[in-house]
């Protein structure tokens, strides 16, 4: 436990907010996919994991800084997400009986395969990016010391949320996304190819978590199971905010980040997730559809 | 003679929307009563209130001399109120007979009894030949029959039918009418929400017309159909069928 001065508390909370924005960025892809087609991607953590590995290998083999590789990784994840939809999820959605079970376990199975592949090809060793432009630097804002990578990540997250909002509300494709969300059957009548919209939705969701992964690779260890720990936080974030709500993911992320930081101040570090879990349970017991959820 | 079912001053509000306003109706044992009215009249809401899906904002519901207003749906079934769903809700992964057994189990825990009763009910409803077929493989009119069979297996005193004849071919609808008559003949009271006037009017003993959440008129079908208020209500609704 630390000595609790007002300074350390503010410090922790500020860091918590930054991480919260990153959690929101990870979670929003999940919320988007769910809002679009009622499917929870249980391989979401593994998407994050490959984004982190991709960033690492671009650094290790080509000395590309994560900041530069971020857009590349996001683009690659976009393609990957669309492919996962087309090859796996599309078929999962056809299930009539046991539909819930099929969706859960098809993506879960995929997560296991991805983790196995990572272990096989990359070994379970922990990797880290040792030199990067932002890595290890801190900046002082109004007397609070903030780690630069997390700060940058938070800014990127905010920008991404803004871009997403604009995209959904102001562009044609965004409207197609909304329309398909409302009534997937009807959109075919106006010439919208449901599969294409879903594939692009998955791509977009994956790209967002890819972006988060590229940035997180700057300051987190990278290993095959890294997705698992963040995945649970992502599910909790989305569920807290309410499945299907993009804004909910944003708000949920902030809440989770703050709760995690607060818990770390009070309890031993190994228990820092307990706070988040407790808040999740509390929220859904009172509001079974999450804070902003409508589904 | 006390009524089997009575609603007393039932109001249902959803936020600012008033779905049912001061509805007081009664159904005598042994009757077939039709609950009709144009779209948005509040029929489905009233239906769901009687079935126990939700409690009314105001008012009370008396069934068989007991105030059941606060009882949830499962307990109302215990008391003898059974219902079908407008959008059929069969247990898709179970066979037809298993579907019906679920209903029968409320009256007996002995499996052999429940199974025997289920067979009887299927026979009664004309589905005996489809007993071992998975419910997902039934055609729509058979699924409707299954809804009725399941509800009947609970040995109800009052059977609530939600648009059970809508969207059927004339032949299927006629068979449906016969089934409803058979059900009443066994002593079960029937309250049915319907849209298809020309099918329903010859079937029911009495009709209750709702409009805009209120009871507009009640009486014998022949009288109700000619009532100018009823005609006006339906003409105002462009989607009315029949009349």
């Amino acid at each position, binding site marked *: 436990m630390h000595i609790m001065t007002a300074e350390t508390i503010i410090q922790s909370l500020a860091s918590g907010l930054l991480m919260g924005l990153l959690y929101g960025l990870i979670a929003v892809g999940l919320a988007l996919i769910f809002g679009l087609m009622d499917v929870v991607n249980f391989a979401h953590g593994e998407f994050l994991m490959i984004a982190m590995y991709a960033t690492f290998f671009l650094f290790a083999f080509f000395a590309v800084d994560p900041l530069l590789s971020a857009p590349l990784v996001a683009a690659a994840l976009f393609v990957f997400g669309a492919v996962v939809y087309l090859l796996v999820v599309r078929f999962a959605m056809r299930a009539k009986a046991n539909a819930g079970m099929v969706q859960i376990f098809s993506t879960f199975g995929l997560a296991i395969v991805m983790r196995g592949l990572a272990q096989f090809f990359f070994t379970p060793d922990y990797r880290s990016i040792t030199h990067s432009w932002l890595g290890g630097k801190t900046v002082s804002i109004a007397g609070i010391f903030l780690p630069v990578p997390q700060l940058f990540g938070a800014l990127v997250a905010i920008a991404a949320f803004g871009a997403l909002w604009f995209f959904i509300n102001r562009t044609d494709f965004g409207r197609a996304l909304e329309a398909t969300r409302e009534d997937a059957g009807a959109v075919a009548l106006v010439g919208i190819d449901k599969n294409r919209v879903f594939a692009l939705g998955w791509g977009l969701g994956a790209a967002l978590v890819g972006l988060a992964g590229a940035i997180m690779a700057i300051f987190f260890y990278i290993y095959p199971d890294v997705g698992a720990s963040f995945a*649970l936080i992502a599910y909790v974030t989305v569920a807290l905010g309410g499945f299907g709500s993009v804004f909910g993911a944003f708000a949920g992320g902030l809440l989770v980040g703050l709760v995690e930081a607060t818990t770390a101040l009070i309890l031993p570090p190994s*228990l820092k997730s307990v706070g988040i*879990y407790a808040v*999740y*349970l509390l929220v859904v017991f009172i509001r079974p*559809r999450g804070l902003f959820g409508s589904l | 003679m006390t009524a089997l079912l009575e609603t007393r001053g039932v109001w249902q509000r959803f936020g600012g929307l008033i779905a049912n306003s001061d509805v007081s109706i009664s159904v005598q044992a042994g009757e077939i009563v039709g609950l009709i009215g144009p779209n948005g009249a509040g029929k489905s809401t009233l239906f769901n209130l009687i079935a126990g899906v939700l409690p009314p904002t105001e008012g009370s519901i008396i069934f068989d001399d007991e105030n059941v207003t606060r009882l949830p749906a499962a307990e109302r079934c215990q008391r003898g109120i059974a219902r079908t769903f407008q959008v059929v809700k069969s247990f898709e992964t179970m066979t037809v007979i298993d579907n019906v057994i679920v209903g029968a*189990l409320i009256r007996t825990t002995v499996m*052999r009894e429940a199974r025997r009763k289920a067979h009887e009910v299927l026979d009664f409803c004309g589905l005996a030949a489809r007993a071992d077929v998975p419910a997902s493989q039934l055609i729509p009119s058979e699924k409707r029959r299954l809804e009725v069979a399941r509800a009947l297996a609970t040995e109800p005193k009052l059977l609530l039918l939600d648009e059970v004849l809508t969207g059927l071919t004339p032949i299927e609808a006629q068979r449906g009418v016969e089934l409803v008559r058979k059900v009443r003949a066994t002593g079960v009271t029937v309250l049915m929400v319907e849209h298809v006037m020309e099918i329903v009017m010859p079937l029911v003993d009495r009709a209750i017309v709702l409009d805009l959440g209120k009871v507009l008129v009640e009486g014998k079908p022949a009288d109700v159909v000619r009532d100018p208020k009823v005609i006006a209500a339906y003409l105002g609704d462009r989607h009315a069928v029949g009349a």
Partner: protein
Amino acid sequence: MDTAFAERRRRNLIVAACLAAIAALVPLFVKDVYVQNIMVLSLMYAALSQSWNILSGYCGQISLGHALYFGLGAYTTALLFTKFGVLPWFGMLGGGLISAAIALALGYPCFRLRGHYFVIATIVIAETALLLFQNWEWAGAALGIDIPVRGDSWLKFQFTRSKLPYFYFALVLACIAWFVTWWLEDSKWGYWWRAVKDNPDAAESLGVVVFNSKMGAAAVSAFLTAVGGSFYAQFVSYIDPESVMGFQFSLLMALPAVLGGIGTLWGPMLGAVILIPLTELTRSFIGGSGRGVDLIVYGALIVLISLARPQGLVGMFSRHRKAATR
């Protein structure tokens, strides 16, 4: 019609008895300790998956946090034995009852949740329990509990010279789990569970008290899972939070049922006898450099089964049987 049904029920029972008898004879021919170990684990997972299947398969409430009950069973037995000298047989019972009680307590708020919110709640609760145990000094915290083994004893349920007693116990456990499922399948509980799974609204309209149904399924499932956990503690003689409450256990309890046929009588059994040996063998045959191969194999299996045959492998056999009687 009724007699055909009764016949089918009886046939299942006879087949189960025969399989159990055959299984009981296997150790007489297979002496390799490594293989015996796999067999014990397969039977244990068959029992565990069958228990999981009751709540998640029949009643449709998919839980990915069942490691909670497994761990509770393991810890109850281990703690009662090491701290108070209570024999594992009582510990098993205690673990089962505690788990059932906790399942009911958790069910109260959790069964109000639908779909994904419920699944995530189960994961979160199990993780929380794991974290709490990792920080609970009295229970050994992260270091866990070492169960002292001093020679063979049926009373203390520990054996050093041979795995056979464990094998037979696991076999009995699997039989019990199967039998409980068989019995409940054709009972009011079984029918109501399936109704709740398929359509809770319709079930309610037919008099099913959905909440009570779920609670019943949860309690039975938790009890049996905990007994499995208690067995495991005695089998390995050392437990720690990660090894008995980790998420991988929750998954490993669910996967055999998914593979074999979720919500079916034989599914979890079939799935366990395929999946467990498969994962153990791939893990050891491909050796050190093969890390992750077991994951790839069984992950791929799960994806394939969920997409191509969601009713599980059992569906393949029954279809042939039905065709044969037509």
